[in-house]
């Protein structure tokens, strides 16, 4: 029962990933794509953590932490680039 709830929430998060990807592919502007990328990476962090929970591997939480760090840096750098060039 408890595991089923976690599976259901993982599936809903996966659906959210797909919905965010619509904006990523459609987005008329660069910054629209960056916003969609931000959303996709935040959802992926949750997904990595829950995959670690379902597989009972606590290492995947560390992977999620590093992923969060890299995605944050990526968003900041792209926003800086759009603002006034590197």
């Amino acid at each position, binding site marked *: 029962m408890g595991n089923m709830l976690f599976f259901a929430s993982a599936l809903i998060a996966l659906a959210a990933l797909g919905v965010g990807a619509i904006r990523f592919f459609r987005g008329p502007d660069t910054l629209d794509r960056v*916003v969609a990328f931000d*959303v996709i990476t*935040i959802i992926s962090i949750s997904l990595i953590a829950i995959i670690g929970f379902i597989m009972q591997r606590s290492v995947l939480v560390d992977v999620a932490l590093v992923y969060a760090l890299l995605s944050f840096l990526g968003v*900041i750098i792209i926003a800086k680039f759009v603002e006034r060039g590197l």
Partner: protein
Amino acid sequence: MEITMIAGGIVSLFGSLFLLLGALGVVRMPDLFNRIQAGTKATTLGTMLFLAGIAIAEPSWIPKLLLLVLFIIFTNPVSSHVLARSAHHAGIRMSDRTVADHLAKAIEQRGSENLQSDGQGAAEVKLKGGER
């Protein structure tokens, strides 16, 4: 054991619903600035609830999950702010229903102040702009 699993599952189900709503907001909102709001605030809460559900079900992971949640709380508003600032700087149009643009007003005010102070301020601003 089973009860903590069910409680954690319900909490993370709520979190995943917030994630879905945030992603829907990113697709449906009319304007880049509205999209930034939808895509950052809703997903921050969603991720926090999601990880809280995992923490309820697996108490030995609490330190790592707390670190992850704190990192997201601190960095997500920063990235939202930077995105909005660079969008405003790049001159992206707002939707027709926008009623207030305080940043544009502030930039205009600062520009006129620099002009009034006998050209020195403007030169300083130019120098700073060159340094960047």
